[in-house]
């Protein structure tokens, strides 16, 4: 009999992530694609990519769970879960202890608190505006006319941090232009932008002793983790592929559902 395979599909507003797990919870294949506007098609393509990587056929998938903003658009999903649940489950899988999960996504941030058994105690989501999310960094990269991928490198070169005072993305953009006019260095400004992301996150909720950071923004800008450690003095943990945390959590939910059904 073929090995059991569980698919987790996280259709975020910005990127779609797929993770395929075997029953030992090992990642067999994965994919990340721009979500675009046709979520159904993107989730198909991403699944195809992950299947190819895993060398598994679609028919062999035991159970699929979709999550994220576009979760209801994933035609092949057997069930859906919220991204809050999936990020919590994914993060706890890697760090099974009482943790605060900080997920910095393309368009929203989440802070989820879990107890030592992985039960959710509370969660908060910032969704009123783009402040502190990936969209903020994208917008600022555009204003500074630097490729998004170079932000991380630039921030690491900073000698000092140019602090930005504003909540609002548009106000921040004006502030950045003002700083350039004053002759501030681009790396220092980029570090200031990273700090602004961190400040927006820390305003959302208090943190517990152990923190796990997840999401695409941290995957591509690990310097944010370094800065978060410095800022909070806390132990900050990161899964190997932070961007896949939600998709992995979704696959784990699927695994549980199948096990529960078998036990019933």
């Amino acid at each position, binding site marked *: 009999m073929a090995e059991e395979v569980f698919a987790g599909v996280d259709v975020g507003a910005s990127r779609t992530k797929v993770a395929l797990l075997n029953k030992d919870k090992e990642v067999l294949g994965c994919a990340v694609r721009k979500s675009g506007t046709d979520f159904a098609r993107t989730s198909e393509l991403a699944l195809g990519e992950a299947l190819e990587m895993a060398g598994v056929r679609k028919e062999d998938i035991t159970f699929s769970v979709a999550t994220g903003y576009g979760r209801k658009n994933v035609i092949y999903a057997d069930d859906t879960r919220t*991204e809050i649940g999936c990020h919590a489950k994914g993060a706890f899988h890697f760090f099974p202890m009482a943790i605060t999960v900080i997920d910095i996504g393309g368009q929203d941030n989440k802070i989820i608190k879990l107890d030592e058994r992985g039960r959710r105690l509370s969660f908060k*989501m910032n969704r009123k505006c783009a402040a502190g999310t990936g969209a903020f960094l994208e917008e600022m990269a555009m204003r500074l006319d630097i490729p998004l991928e170079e932000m991380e490198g630039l921030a690491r070169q900073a000698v000092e941090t140019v602090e930005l005072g504003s909540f609002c993305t548009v106000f921040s953009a004006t502030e950045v232009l003002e700083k350039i006019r004053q002759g501030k260095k681009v790396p220092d400004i980029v570090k200031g932008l990273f700090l602004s992301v961190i400040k927006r996150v820390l305003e959302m909720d208090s943190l517990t002793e152990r923190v796990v950071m997840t999401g695409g923004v941290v995957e591509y800008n690990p310097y944010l983790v370094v800065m978060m450690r410095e800022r909070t003095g806390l132990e900050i943990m990161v899964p190997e592929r932070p961007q896949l945390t939600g998709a992995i959590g979704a696959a784990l939910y699927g695994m549980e559902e199948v096990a529960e059904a078998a036990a019933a």
Partner: protein
Amino acid sequence: MLAKKESPRKEIAATKTLKKIMANHFYDLDEAARTGSKKIAWCTSVGPAELLRGMGFLVYFPENHGAMLGATRMATELIPHANAIGYSPDICSYLTSDIGSYLAKKTPLTKAYNIKSVPRPDVLVFNTNQCRDVQDWFSWYGREFGVPVIGVHTHRDIGQIRDYQIKDIAKQIEDLVPPLEEVSGQKFDMDRFREAVELSRQCSVLWRTCLETAAAIPSPWTFFDHTIHMGPAVVARGTKEAVDYYELLLEELNQRIESGIAAVEGEKYRLYWEGMPIWGKLRPLSELFISLKTCIVASTYCNSWIFDQLDPEEPFESMARAYTELFIVRDEAYKEQYIKNCHEFFKFHGIIFHDAKTCPNNSNNRYGMPERLSKKMGIPTLTINGDLNDLRCYSEEQAKTNVEAFIEQLEEN
């Protein structure tokens, strides 16, 4: 032919009578405005309605009109008219949608009752017990119509209520009498006033008893029903019709309990709603909660029209007491204890705080209350961002995800 999608909401039979009462309320006002047969007073929703009725006025409530503008989703289109003349999008969206409706000459009364416009006031009477916005709101109309604007200035954020506060408010209410006599052209009649206070008391007791039926498990009705059926408690308290209505409704609710009829089929979770309704989204929200087998059993908002202290023997003092005792007038410690008591009575599993962008007065999440209550009561809380009327401040998808995640959390714990 396409089959009409059936709503999972269970209609309450008394709704028919409710609709009649609301319609008559507006027809009477419209007729009086057109013919001058009776004087019309505009009053804030938790303002001194009993006095106005006792003095023979027909009473119109702009906040009720505000809620209609919200529920019909006309508000979002009309608010910008008020913004454009200097009323900020950050202040009360009842105010901005109502003034916007006046400026654009559009009212939901036209579609619902074939009434062209809201009834012209002879006097506007406010009570700042709920907020300052009502005074600014009424003052705008006062200037527009050239009619007097009078009111009561309440002490706010009160812990224990002191005698001096009650004396002050009672005196302020009494002081409304001479200017009201001038407008009405009639002498104040104590017996008539006492009668209005007594009818309002009866209405209040019955409304409370109706709300308390939601303590039954499963609950016979939900917060979304409450927001509709509170109509008479707001616009018709102090009348016999309101009293009769709640007797009828109570009977139906008790029957539902007896026959084990649940408002939410298969009720699994019970929640408390803290804050204003999101008027333009009542239906989708109510259906969302039904799909999650969750019943919102109680709310601060719908409890706000309970005036237990009313007493015809001491009409001024008891009105002062009733309008000062309200949740919205009180300090954080009182509010927390109040919600704790509700928890013991209604047995809910969590609290949803609605942070209404334009109403700080009804958004109790802003000074750390969710965190404190969650710790004290050992139940989770969720804050959703939205607004009473301004749907530009609300994201349906985000609210939905938050609610679903909250129920997921309850399920897993």
